[in-house]
Each structure stands twice: as structure tokens, then as C-alpha cells.
């Protein structure tokens, strides 16, 4: 009996000693990440690059000795909407995440965003770019859907303003996927508002290997500027030397990938214009670029997508750190009021507000151009 009592006292004393130590442990907050990490190469390039940025942001977060320990739960949606939805449900029901980041395909985001909105778990969408991802939910009060990525409409508007000013004959090449058809519609509507007609509109299925036919039509229509909104960004360039045609190409921010440079080549890519949100002339962006190169080596291939992944990560991790616990609603509120962010991309210091859940607004998106193997800001007259 005595022994039992003594053991009880000792156990109580040990528990008492252990409590302050446990209290010093950083609170664990789980963050779900859904990305396209397999499937079509363009999807994988986007997904892996964005995830590289998130992981670097987490490394920086941990280096600051935070009061919260963040654990990433990473899933691959394989660019498949059904899989993306089931992964979102798994993150909510099994993994008990307090926030989610993802994914590449806008259709996938729009498929699982309502689940997270209902579950009251903040979603930081990216690198998906469909225009209406956050605006669909902004009137929910409160909306749990945020985004740190390019917005399709902003890059298209910037491109059309520049294109109409500088070219008389504009052609469009788009893919027959949901993304390509959506972009084509936005371009056609944007040009109609500017009283300009496309001289040629050509399409191509996602798995095609040769665009000779489409580019012959583009050349014969006299297109001086070809807007390229096909996911296989490099395809358009291959037939050009064969048909003796050298238009200016402009398109999706995907054209800024180092993979496109590697496949197409510096000479053919020279002068290609695309939507951008990262200016590598900025010393902060250049330092980030060098860090990413050191961190990921040859696997690093997309500065702007990596930068937006980093900013998505740092914005979310700062909001979590401010809350200090796994409280999804409080994290959402913290995201909305966060200020003083030192972003790598063009994301402003206060990324969000109750009426704006986009990291990038119209004024932050600019046009980049390939010059001597580097994407630089396009100087406009």
C-alpha cells in the first residue's frame, strides 16, 4: 500500500515536471497540399514548381523558431477532378488539416473548393488561374477561398492591350481542353470590346504532336502576333522554320518556364511575350532565384511559379503563426487581415481584404518577354 502511494506521488511529481516542458512544445498545425504531381508534363511542371516554393517557405518559417510547428500533408491529384475531390475530403475528415493549398487545374479547384468552404477550412488556391475561383465565393461572408496565383483575365487583358496597340493582325491558337476553350472565349470577348477581330483561330487537341497545319493557316492569314494558349507551350514553335514563318508569340505565363527555353531554344523563343508576376531585375527576386537554384538544382525550372508557391506558403504560415494554434476559422480571419508581407512575386504587403481574396490584382500583373535566355519586364511604348 505504502509502495503504491509512494509510486503515485512520484508519478504526480513527474507529470508536474513534464507539463511545463509540454507547454513549451510548438503547437502542431497540419496544412494539406493538393498538387498535380503526375500526368501531363505541363501540369507536373506547374505542380512541382509551386510545391518547391511552398517547401522553401516552410524551411524559412522553421528557421524563425516559430511557436507553431507546421506539417505539410502532400497529395498528388494527378490532374484528375474526382481524385482531387476525394483528396480534399480525406484532408478534412482524416488528416484534420487547418488549411489547404492547391492545385494546378482550375477545374479541380472549383470541384473541391465548395467542400472546404462548407467545412470552414481556408483554401489558398494555386497555381490555378481560372478567373472566377475566388469571386464565386467572395459573397459567402465569410469566404474561405483565397488564391496566390496568376489570374487568367488579368494576363489576357494586359496582353490584349499591348497586342492591339502594336499589331494589326492577331491570330489565336488554343487547346481543345476546358482551359484552352475558356481562354479562347476570354480572348475573343476581350478583342470584341476593343473592336478587333482575330484573323485566324486555330485549335489543337492536348495530345497532338504536330501543328504544321495550324501554323500554315496562321501564316496564310497574315497573323503578325500569335496568341498561344495551348498547354504544350513548345509545340507551336517546331513547324515555324519549316514553313518560313516568324510571328511574335504571346501567351500564358507558362511560356516563361525554363523547360520551354530548354526545348524550344533561346533563338526561337527570343521576343516571346507572356503574363508575369515576377521581375527578376528586382534584387529580392534575383536572390530568391539563386536560392531556388541552390536548393533544387536542375529540378528548379519555373521562377514565377516557384515564387508564387513561396508567397502562398509564407502568407499562410504567417497567418498560422499569428493564430498560434490549429484553428481554421481564426487562420482564415488572420489571412484576411494579414499585412506587412515581403513577397517575392508582385503580391502586395497586404495581400487580402474582406472583398479581395487574390494575392495578385490587375495592377500587379505585367508582361514579360524572353530576351537572351531570360524573362525580363516588357518595356511598353
Amino acid at each position: 500500500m505504502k509502495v503504491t502511494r509512494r509510486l503515485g506521488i512520484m508519478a504526480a511529481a513527474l507529470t508536474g515536471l513534464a507539463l511545463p516542458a509540454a507547454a513549451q512544445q510548438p503547437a502542431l498545425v497540419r496544412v494539406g497540399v493538393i498538387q498535380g504531381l503526375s500526368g501531363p508534363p505541363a501540369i507536373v511542371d506547374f505542380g512541382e514548381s509551386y510545391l518547391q516554393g511552398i517547401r522553401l517557405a516552410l524551411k524559412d518559417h522553421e528557421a524563425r523558431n516559430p511557436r507553431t510547428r507546421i506539417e505539410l500533408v502532400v497529395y498528388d491529384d494527378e490532374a484528375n477532378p474526382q481524385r482531387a475531390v476525394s483528396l480534399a475530403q480525406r484532408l478534412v475528415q482524416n488528416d484534420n488539416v487547418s488549411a489547404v493549398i492547391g492545385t494546378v487545374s482550375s477545374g479541380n479547384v472549383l470541384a473541391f473548393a465548395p467542400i472546404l468552404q462548407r467545412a470552414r477550412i481556408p483554401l489558398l488556391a494555386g497555381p490555378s488561374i481560372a478567373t472566377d475561383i475566388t469571386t464565386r465565393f467572395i459573397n459567402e461572408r465569410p469566404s474561405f477561398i483565397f488564391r496566390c496565383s496568376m489570374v487568367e483575365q488579368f494576363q489576357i487583358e494586359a496582353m490584349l492591350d499591348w497586342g492591339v496597340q502594336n499589331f494589326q493582325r492577331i491570330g489565336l491558337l488554343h487547346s481543345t481542353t476546358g482551359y484552352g476553350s475558356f481562354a479562347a472565349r476570354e480572348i475573343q470577348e476581350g478583342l470584341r470590346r476593343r473592336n478587333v477581330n482575330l484573323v485566324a483561330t486555330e485549335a489543337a487537341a492536348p495530345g497532338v504532336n504536330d501543328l504544321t497545319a495550324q501554323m500554315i493557316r496562321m501564316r496564310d492569314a497574315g497573323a503578325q502576333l500569335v496568341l498561344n494558349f495551348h498547354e504544350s507551350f513548345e509545340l507551336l514553335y517546331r513547324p515555324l522554320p519549316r514553313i518560313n514563318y516568324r510571328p511574335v508569340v504571346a501567351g500564358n505565363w507558362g511560356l516563361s518556364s525554363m523547360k520551354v527555353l530548354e526545348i524550344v531554344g533561346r533563338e526561337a523563343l527570343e521576343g516571346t511575350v507572356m503574363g508575369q508576376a515576377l521581375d527578376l531585375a528586382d534584387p529580392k527576386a534575383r536572390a530568391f532565384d539563386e536560392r531556388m537554384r541552390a536548393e533544387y538544382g536542375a529540378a528548379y525550372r519555373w521562377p514565377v511559379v516557384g515564387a508564387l508557391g513561396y508567397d502562398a506558403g509564407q502568407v499562410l504560415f504567417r497567418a498560422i503563426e499569428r493564430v498560434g494554434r490549429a484553428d481554421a476559422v481564426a487562420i482564415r480571419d488572420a489571412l484576411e487581415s494579414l499585412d506587412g508581407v515581403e513577397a517575392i512575386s508582385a503580391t502586395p504587403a497586404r495581400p487580402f481584404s474582406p472583398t479581395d481574396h487574390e494575392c495578385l490584382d490587375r495592377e500587379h500583373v505585367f508582361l514579360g518577354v524572353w530576351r537572351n535566355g531570360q524573362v525580363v519586364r516588357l518595356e511598353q511604348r
Partner: protein
Amino acid sequence: MGLTNFLQLLVSGLAMGAIYTLTAKGLFIAHVTTHRVNFGQGDFLMVAAFLTLAGLGAGLPVLAVIPMVVVALGLMGWGLERIAVRPLDRPGAARFGAAHAWILTTAGVALILQNVVELIWGKSSQYAPPLFSDRRDNVITLGGVGFFVEELLVMAAACIAVGVFYWFLLRSRWGKDVYTVAFNPEAAALLGIDVRRTVVMVWVLAALLAAVSGILVGPLVTVHPHMGLIFTIKALAVASLGGFANPLGILAGGVLFGVAEAFSNYWDSAYGDLYPLLFVLLMLVLRPAGIFGEKTADVR
């Protein structure tokens, strides 16, 4: 449409058609002998394209890379027969539902190949350098029509393959062995033909055809680990169109399909890839055995 555009589209269609022909030939030779096809034929092509770009990337001369890739693919063809096909021929295996298991095993090998390539080269697209030039825009122009050297080579390779196949199958002793094994393996064995060796050679030959097309196709398309599937599907369409039993039919099917693809994309790019497939379906309704298929029942 002007004559130059017509010829340019024709060249473009012939080049793609030649790639489909070479891939379909691999399906044809395996099917004619064993009544089986390699559902990973396009993935063998993909591996050849990756091995070629790796060899060239390592600074090896083209003339060293080509035999290396050919040997590697030959070994893969042997391995495919040994691992994914032969075990299904065990006595009594058919009773346990293995009669069509080769569909699963060859497709399984294709998936393994995709994953191995992803592990080595990553999931992205890769740059495949031209074989005979340092420049990416090395174009030969004839009468206003531009060609890449590889396009001419792939067309030549398809024609040579058809000629060699004709000679082998109809004139050589080995070809007669193939047809005898196809007709009746037991009778072939009684006649002194080494059935197993003939079957192995057929799978090796199919892999060698994938090697040739893989080496030549790299600079003409975007190389990535999942590029093989589309070539397998189109090769199946080509073989169905031309007739699974006739090497000349495979060439005709490949050329027809490639050219139809180029012209349909010119007339209506939104559905350019759909029309050739509809054309194949229509032809199969009219001639189920393909354009060059045998009208009489297959008695094998």
C-alpha cells in the same frame, strides 16, 4: 489551297504516318505470329527516344548511339517475351483465364517503363536534339517545301521496313518459319522448326522497330514519359485500317492515317484529330478486316 501548302501538309502527314507505320509494324509482326500484340509498343518507342537523347546528351556520336539503342531495345524485346508473354504459355495456363492475360502483362510492362523513365529523367518533357545537326532549325527546302532531315529518314525507314518485311516473310526461310508457327505451332515443331526461337525473334524484331522509330521520332515531337500511349493507340488504328495480316496494308494504313490527320487539321483544327479516327471506324464497318485484310476467314 496552294500547291506548296498541299505538298507541305503531305510531307508532314507522311512523316507522322511513317512513325505510325513503324509502330504498327511491331504490332503486326507479333500478332501475325503469336496472335498477341505488345500494348506497350509505343512505350518501347518512348524508351528508345529517351535512350537516344541520353546518349547524345552524354556527348556520344550518333553512329555510336544508334547501335546502342537498337541493342538495348532488342534486349527489352527479349525480356518482354521472357517475363510477360512466355509464362502465360505454360501448359494449362489458359484454363486459369490466362488466354488474354498478355493484354494485362504487356500493358503492365508499359506502365513500369513509364515509371522507370520518370524516376530517371523526371516527369517533364525533354529536349531531344536533332540527330544530324547542331542547329534546331536545320531545314532542307525543296520547291518551297521544308523538311527536317529526321522526317526524310523516318519516311525512308518505314519504306525500307516494308520492303525488308516482304522479303523476310515471303522469300526467306525465317519468314516461312514465322508463317508456319502462326499457322500451327505444334505442326511447326514436328517439321523441325524451333518454335520458341521464332517467337522470341518476333518479339525482338517488334522491339527493334520501336527502336528505329524512337530514335527518329525524338527530334520531331515532344519527348516525355507518357508519349507512348498515343502512338500505341494510333498504331492500333493504323493496323486495323490497313489490315493486321499484310505489311503493305500497314504502310498504306499509316500513310492514309498520317496524311488524313494533317489535312483534317488544316480544314478544321478544332476536330482535326477526330476525323481520321471516324474514318477508321467507317472503314472497319465497310471492311472489317481492313483495306488489305484477307477476305477469307482466318484458318489459323
